[in-house]
């Protein structure tokens, strides 16, 4: 006769093998876990790009001198801003904003060159369409840098060969081109993993209730923890596959670097998955039907992972209350961990606090799910 633990393992295996069959036989599960994330990553990765590229710029050059043309050239040389034509006055620029022909307008007033030569402070006006705040902010920063560079050039040219006394040399590490895909893809991976993992398991226990099989299970000697663990295992496997697929896709389609160790990456992914699968179990233990479980699962994973994980909106910029709430969102730790491993080449020696946070979350939700899982039909 097998010992207690041996018998328990057999029952967990029975559950896992059965659940594996459900997965293999249900094309929706496979699509949801493997097809959809890649599709979404593709759409998001290209669509949610914050890189400034070919922003239409209207030019109101009232000075019409060599200096003013040099300024316009300096702004549009990198093709991040593209001149869409000249306008007679600033009022016309506003009209161009409304008609969405331009997002920014450079106004060089008459007397620009003369003031330059007279060594006066020269005002140059940049009008920006602020309707899209994200574009507007990046645009302002970009334009500011370009104008500063131009003004530096003018100053140096005037003073001659003398170097200015202080020169800041900015050197951006890890993502020198500021490519938003590098920033977004780790976040997206965490986000996609979060919603699919929660949904996958949210459906399984609710499914047992709906199909009536819970009655047969409860009448058998299988324990609650055995049911929970047996259900977790196959989805953990599926989730890991999804994780690898998403990261591999990010590396091939978006040139995402992989500077850290695969071990650190896999460990973070595994522990994160455990927590999200556990959250799905908790949802389905409470919901008892698949429709409610789907909605609760989506709401509890999608919104927090999207808004509070730091995937898009930096946590440092959030109000203090939201910063505190984000501490219980597992995606926050995975986003941070993934960026660390992929972009900076960090290992667990640096990222262990993220790992610990993820582990605590996993233990708490799986514990809660098991405790809330009443061995009662009514």
């Amino acid at each position, binding site marked *: 006769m097998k010992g207690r633990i041996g018998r328990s393992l057999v029952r967990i295996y029975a559950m896992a093998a059965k659940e594996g069959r459900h997965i293999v036989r249900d094309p929706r599960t496979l699509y949801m876990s493997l097809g959809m994330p890649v599709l979404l990553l593709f759409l998001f990765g290209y669509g949610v790009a914050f890189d400034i590229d070919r922003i239409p710029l209207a030019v109101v050059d009232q000075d019409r001198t060599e200096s003013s043309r040099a300024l316009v050239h300096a702004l549009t040389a990198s093709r991040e801003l593209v001149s869409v034509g000249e306008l007679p006055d600033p009022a016309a620029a506003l009209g161009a904003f409304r008609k969405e022909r331009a997002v920014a307008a450079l106004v060089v007033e008459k007397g620009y060159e003369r003031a330059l030569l007279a060594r006066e402070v020269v005002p140059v006006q940049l009008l920006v369409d602020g309707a899209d705040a994200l574009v507007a902010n990046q645009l302002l920063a970009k334009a500011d840098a370009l104008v500063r560079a131009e003004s530096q050039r003018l100053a140096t040219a005037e003073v001659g060969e003398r170097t200015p006394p202080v020169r800041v040399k900015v050197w951006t590490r890890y993502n020198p081109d500021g490519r938003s895909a590098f920033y977004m893809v780790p976040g997206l991976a965490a986000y996609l993993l979060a919603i699919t993992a929660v949904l996958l398991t949210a459906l399984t226990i609710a499914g047992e209730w709906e199909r*009536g099989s819970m009655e*047969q299970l409860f009448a058998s000697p299988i324990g609650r923890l055995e049911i929970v663990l047996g259900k977790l295992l196959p989805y953990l496997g599926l989730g890991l596959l999804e994780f690898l697929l998403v990261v591999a896709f990010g590396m091939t389609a978006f040139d995402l670097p992989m500077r850290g160790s695969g071990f650190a990456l896999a460990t973070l992914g595994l522990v994160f998955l455990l927590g999200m699968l556990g959250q799905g179990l908790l949802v389905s233990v409470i919901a008892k039907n698949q429709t409610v479980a789907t909605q609760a699962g989506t709401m509890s994973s999608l919104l927090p992972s999207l808004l509070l994980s730091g995937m898009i909106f930096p946590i440092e910029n959030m109000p203090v209350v939201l910063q505190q709430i984000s501490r219980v969102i597992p995606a926050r730790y995975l986003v941070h961990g993934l960026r660390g491993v992929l972009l900076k080449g960090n290992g667990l020696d640096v990222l262990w606090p993220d790992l610990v946070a993820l582990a605590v979350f996993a233990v708490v939700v799986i514990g809660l799910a098991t405790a809330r899982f009443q061995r009662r039909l009514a």
Partner: protein
Amino acid sequence: MQELHAARGEAAPEAGAGPALSARGLSRRFGEVTALDGLSFEVGRGELYGLVGPDGAGKTTAIRALAGLIRLDGGEARVLGLAADDHAVRERVGLMPQQFSLYRDLSVGENLRFFSRVFVLPREVYRRRAERLLEITRLAPFLDRRADALSGGMYKKLALACALLHEPEVLLLDEPTNGVDPVSRRELWALLHEFVHGGMTVLVSTPYMDEAERCGRVGLMNRGRLLLEGAPPALIAGFRDEAYEVRGGERDRVEAELARTPAVRAASPAGERLRIVVARGASAELARALAPLGATLAPVTPDFEDLFLSRIREEEA
């Protein structure tokens, strides 16, 4: 004591001797509905006990209570001398729920294999039992068919096979013949008798009165309580009312007259005719009242259905 048992070829009493099933004052409400209202009965070891009653009588709740699957508001359910929700009981009880409770996308063989693993049966034992169960349920040719592609009767037999894999001492069946064709139904009952012969205790619920007659003992349930209990022949022998067929007459007017007469305990259509249960000694007067409508009374032998209908009406009056 030990020797005496051994001499009679009986097993020594285990921990938890006593009746196989015991329900004592079981009560459970679901919101406004009282499903169990002080239900009490016992099923001895090796007995085939039928729980009979109309839909909504509380049969399913009673079986779930004995399977330890629901919380009780009051009373105590015991199985093999242990509390019904005791973990040790689960290895020794088999349950066949009323609704679909297996995995639809798994085949016959995969469902069986799953439950054999849940009960941690050694592979050899599983193979031997599955083979025999597939043979007696005649499911062997459908081993690879998905459960959701089985007919109603085949599905029930598969559910029965799954509930029997671990050779339970007690088998609980909730309306096992619901939605099953007559041939499969007869086969199922033949199997139950075979199991009881082998020493198994079987509790079966059914809304069909003809099935009740096949049980060793039956309990009639209505509104969460037991109305009467006993062996079917004894119950019929003790039936004090009389059963008649009403022939002729205009149906509507006859029914109106019957409804007006308190001595008529039950009336139900039997083909063209009406079958009624009348209090003993009240038939002569009823016959006189029906004569002007062109209807006559013909005595018939009372059966189970008459007995139960009459008791339920009496209870509800």
